[in-house]
């Protein structure tokens, strides 16, 4: 489950019309959502509030150590219009599962961001400021986002703590989204790490006025008309350590126009370390998603297979009535066309779910189980991790998280 602040941040992205899917970092987003979910550890309580569309606060209290906690504040000059009450928030927006990628759009015109204020042309720049303080350890996290242009996003992240080397770290990221391809440049003060990420989408080029989204039936299942093939790469280099990293990846995902079962296939490769990872995620039904991943190392022959599933439990009070609806009324009205922007994070297709169960199991013996849902007006997340191969401790970690927001 997304924390409240992450939820507000994704609402900021959506309100600022930023495509979070179009990045190499989210190449395997569907797989990581289904297989690498985080299980709570210990007991934690979240109390959050969106006091105004511009300001959000959140407090957490946990039992790590004796007591640990944090409080955070978020400010955005873009009003975040999203349901924030824990009794009303759509669970599908909080719990990330299989993602349908949103359509590619060409970057907006700079004129779209101009408004006239008092007769002067002012460029609107959406910005977000976020700070979080962890109490027992006195660690401070800070985030600054700014949409410096319709196709650029600058994010500066910082962590400051006494126990950290050099007192903290600063990471600056500049993302450039041109629709067909995206590039990211990042640098970190920690050992002067420099990084570059790039993603290229084959097929439809939203910038090309002539090419329209072909709505004819695909000639074969691999036709990229109903699917999108993306390839990307990343590279990191640290002049201080004289070390770095490199990886490349490939993804094919089906678009919403695809008539069959939506699926996503990814393949990532680390040529320096010889790591190979391939995954296959499928949305088997409206409430069920499955995913498998196979990791292999060509140098050390280490391998692992992970299987995960996600099962949604919907309210069934009005399900029978919905089945009787005509096809035209079945889905909630959505704006269509290239101009319309619907963030894939905030697609509301069905009535809300009451709970979701996630499970994963790996060949190395590690298994996890998670249930997230709404109880009364609280959002509850219960999870446990198991280690089947361990003889001493079969139950790794158990946790409970309760969240309330207003």
């Amino acid at each position, binding site marked *: 489950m997304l924390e409240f602040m992450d939820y507000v941040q994704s609402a900021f992205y959506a309100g600022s019309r930023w495509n979070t899917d179009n990045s190499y970092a989210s190449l395997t987003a569907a797989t990581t959502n289904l297989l690498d979910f985080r299980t709570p550890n210990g007991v934690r309580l979240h109390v959050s509030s969106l006091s105004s569309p511009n300001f959000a606060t959140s407090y957490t209290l946990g039992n790590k150590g004796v007591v640990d906690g944090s409080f955070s504040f978020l400010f955005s000059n873009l009003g975040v219009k999203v349901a924030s009450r824990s009794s009303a928030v759509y669970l599908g927006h909080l719990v990330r599962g299989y993602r349908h990628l949103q359509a590619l759009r060409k970057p907006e015109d700079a004129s779209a961001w101009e408004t006239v204020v008092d007769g002067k042309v002012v460029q609107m720049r959406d910005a977000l400021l976020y700070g979080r303080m962890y109490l027992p350890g006195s660690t401070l996290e800070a985030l600054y986002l700014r949409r410096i242009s319709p196709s650029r996003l600058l994010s500066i992240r*910082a*962590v400051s703590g006494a126990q950290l080397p050099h007192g903290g770290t600063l990471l600056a990221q500049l993302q450039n989204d041109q629709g067909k391809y995206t590039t990211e440049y990042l640098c970190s003060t*920690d050992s002067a790490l420099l990084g570059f990420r790039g993603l290229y989408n084959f097929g439809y080029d939203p910038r090309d006025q002539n090419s329209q989204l072909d709505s004819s039936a695909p000639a074969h299942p691999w036709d990229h008309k109903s699917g999108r093939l993306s390839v990307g790469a990343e590279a990191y280099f640290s002049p201080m350590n004289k070390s770095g*990293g*490199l990886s490349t990846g490939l993804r094919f995902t089906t678009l919403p126009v695809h008539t069959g079962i939506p699926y996503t296939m990814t393949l990532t490769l680390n040529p320096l370390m010889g*790591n190979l990872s391939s995954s296959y995620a499928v949305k088997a039904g409206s409430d069920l998603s499955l995913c498998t991943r196979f990791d292999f190392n060509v140098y050390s022959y280490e391998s692992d297979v992970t299987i995960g599933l996600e099962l949604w439990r919907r309210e069934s009070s009005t399900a029978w009535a919905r089945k009787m609806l005509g096809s035209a009324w079945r889905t909630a009205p959505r704006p269509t066309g290239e101009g319309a922007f619907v963030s894939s994070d905030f697609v509301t297709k069905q009535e809300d779910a009451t709970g979701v169960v996630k499970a994963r199991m790996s060949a190395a013996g590690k298994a996890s189980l998670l249930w997230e849902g709404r109880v009364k007006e609280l959002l509850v997340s219960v999870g446990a991790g198991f280690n089947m191969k361990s003889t001493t401790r079969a139950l790794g970690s158990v946790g409970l998280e309760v969240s309330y927001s207003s």
Partner: protein
Amino acid sequence: MAFNFNWSPLIADTERVRAMLTTALNKSPKPPIIVDDILVNELNLGPTPPDLEILEIGDLAEDRFRGIFKMSYTGDAYLTLKTRVQANPLNTYLSTKPSFASPQPLAASSGLTIPLQITLSDIRLSGFVILVFSKQKGVTLVFRNDPIESLKVSSTFDAIPFVREYLQRTIENQLRVLFMEDLPAIIHKLSLRMFNPEYQALEEIRSQAAEAVQPRIDPFADSSAETMGGERTPADGEATETYASFSQKNLLRLAALSESQRTLSLFTPAIRDTVYRAWATAADRGQGMSGYSTPNPRIATLSRLNSSFDRSATLSSTASITSGTGSHITRPSLVSNASAPTTYTLGSGRPRPHAQRKRKHRVVNLRKTAVENDASDVVSQSSGYDDSISASESRSKEESSSVTNPSNQIPSVLREGEVSTPPRSPKKIVGFTTDKADGVASSSTPSRRPITPLHKVIQPPDDDDPTPRASMVLPAKENEKRPQRQHLPRMQTLPSRPKGELYRSHSEVKLPDLSNAFNEGSTGGILEQAWMMKMASEIARRVAEEKSGGERWRRTSDGGTSTGGDAPPAYAS
């Protein structure tokens, strides 16, 4: 002196050494680059032992040794370690950083663990080492300086020069730390395990209990062991201290002894199986004497009847022992009074009050003030002492140190008289014989306080019983010395004793009689014994004179009654 190295036992026991070395290497937190535990694959100490050159020997005995050596090793020992390391530097770098500000690469930080085997060979050591060996405590080896001169590190990454140099540097540094800090502990534990099977058994019990065991208390370091001579008998009934050098009782007695010497306490603990310097001179004379009489005078020099601390357990035990053995008590049982059930004790079953340093009045008035019954004298003595004891009961803290009160136990009185009394002028004994009345009168009151009534002087040996006894003879001997005694300066500060009686001397004189009277012991050497005791008491008194000087002064503060006009001059103290 030469050193003979038996190098093989250490090599033979490599299994345990390997286990301990593995534990030591994995104890400290490992850097993130090391993914798995560090295992010791192979350890071979090589055929050549290190060269040791003796620089200094600090302590040398049959079962312990300490010395400083200059050690140099140029042998063929080698050590092989096995572990797994992380080959992706980005992985190790990012794993230690907070995830909020990490770039979170998609796949560039995926890990690759590589098994690594490192062999350390061609080890050259040279340094100063302090080696302490003791049979009970094992071997301890401490390096004064950093001993590693050079070593060769070869690993599975030898083909990559960068990695090879990095490994060489890192491992050399780690080994220096290991030698200086961890190796002494390992060797110590290993030696304890080998030399002391009890330690081994105990260690197993410890490991089973999985509890932190308190460190063994070695009460006295090696240095003090020499002062104690050979007193390393294991404590009686104390099996827990399997390799304790000292018996608990002896330790306590020694502490009491040192304290008494420091604080002028009148109590001196009885220490068995000891040899005192003062015995040397008296030993010539006392060859044929019974056990209890011979050591008495010697013990008297060192021991004080008054006990000021609670050693009741030990003292009473010794008391019981002494009393049990009757006349064969080989040491002055100061405590015996408390628990002595012998008939010698007259009305003394109760615990003795103590802290009677001031009470002890060891001056016996040898002038004859009255001729009385031995028994009556004894009774009076005892009663007097009882009174004094009761009087001083309130003051005493120690019951068992009633040992110091000799009155209640006649036979031990003599011993105690020797033991506890401050030095007396031997001449008082002398005077005792000639002036029996004085002696009797003077010695009649054993009281240590002015309050105690002055009883009749202790009866001189002569009594109505015409049977020839040593007591009859003793006075004669004492007579000879009496004139000398007369010249002794008179100590005005004698408290509680009207005539500066030397009760002890009297009692000691009487003791053989009494012991004979009550005992069916042989009467053969009584005469000699009596004379021996007398001589011994003289010596004892002389030696203890200085120490008890302060006590005399204190006694005066008790508001001691004047010693009376007739009192022989108290010993000059």
